[in-house]
């Protein structure tokens, strides 16, 4: 199969999401390898997905969580004076935030993060996948095995592998069964 630039541009998004079949992927890989313009389109689009997929791009106003908890508390217990509950909730939020910081600062190793998993061989290297700091595996969006939904970031699969993540046995199953 041979594809031209227009076909590559039309499918570039599906290519990054792992939504193209093996034949089309191979044809696109071959074209992109020899086409400067399409390489630049792929690199730029991948940068867009990676940068916007970072949690730092979702900025919530300062105090958002506190105000939300106070409003929920008022609605859950309309007759209760809310000050005490609010203080408890605020203290809980500080504790939760603190524990995330501790968890996040524990370091990211380059060795395989899971002793039970095997490194992925058939995963398309340019496919964008999701990881979180203390996770061991990488996923596609919507995978039910994603445990930490608050600190997800998008990276290319080859980058996730380099950082020691292994493919999720659920959402990456079709690639793990391939002999690549």
């Amino acid at each position: 199969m041979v594809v031209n630039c227009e076909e590559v541009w039309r499918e570039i998004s599906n290519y990054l999401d792992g939504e193209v079949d093996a034949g089309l992927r191979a044809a696109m890989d071959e074209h992109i390898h020899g086409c400067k313009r399409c390489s630049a389109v792929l690199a730029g689009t991948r940068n867009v997905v990676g940068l916007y997929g970072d949690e730092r791009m979702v900025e919530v106003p300062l105090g958002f969580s506190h105000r939300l908890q106070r409003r929920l508390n008022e609605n859950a217990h309309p007759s209760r004076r809310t000050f005490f509950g609010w203080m408890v909730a605020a203290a809980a939020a500080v504790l939760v935030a603190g524990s995330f910081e501790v968890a996040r600062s524990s370091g990211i190793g380059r060795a395989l993060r899971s002793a039970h998993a095997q490194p992925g061989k058939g995963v398309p290297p340019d496919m964008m996948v999701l990881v979180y700091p203390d996770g061991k595996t990488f996923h596609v969006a919507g995978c039910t095995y994603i445990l930490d939904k608050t600190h997800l970031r998008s990276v290319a699969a080859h980058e996730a592998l380099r950082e020691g993540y292994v493919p999720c046995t659920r959402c990456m199953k079709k690639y793990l069964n391939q002999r690549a």
Partner: protein
Amino acid sequence: MLESATSLAHPAGQLSEVELIRRVRDGDADLFYELVRPYERRVYSAAFAILRNKADAEDAAQEAILKAFRHIRQFREEARFSTWLIQIAVNEARMRRRKNHPDVMEPIADRPDEAGNYTPRDFADWREIPSETLERKEIREKLAEALASLGEIYREVFVLRDMQHLSIEETAEALKISTASVKTRLLRARLMLRDLLAPGLGGPWISRMSFGKGTKPW
């Protein structure tokens, strides 16, 4: 006595989402925040993508979460809680936007070919941008500006899919459009953002930044 022993054995932070939903439905209202906490940022950003105003988005996000609380019994367990919550936020934000700007036409029709053939601009190579770049507020602002300049139908899909990491199917469900439309709009949004950002990120914005001893990290 038995109940309190069970509660001690399973503090709220360790309960599964399904268990949390069951307990909230059974009347344990205090656990509701625990249930929505992992998604509060996503609810806010979904509202912000539509309203593009921090105060309005916060108000819409709070209202959406309160609605979810009041209607928790209507949540179908075969659905995903996060998608249900974001769907409520999208509806709330759209309703407010219609109220505030009744003159703005909202695209209702679901046209799969709306993106047409988009030709990406021919820029020189744009090398990998390290995520540390996002520590710089000015870069985040440039990215936010570019996103805000997209047409609404593209912005909504892009935010849900690429910033909130919903799957194609979940994005389609939340916005009540087809998966084909999600894919088409996502392609267009990603290419447009690339075209908007490549000139700056490929040179001027980044070269003004200092990385250590005047060297770039790549």
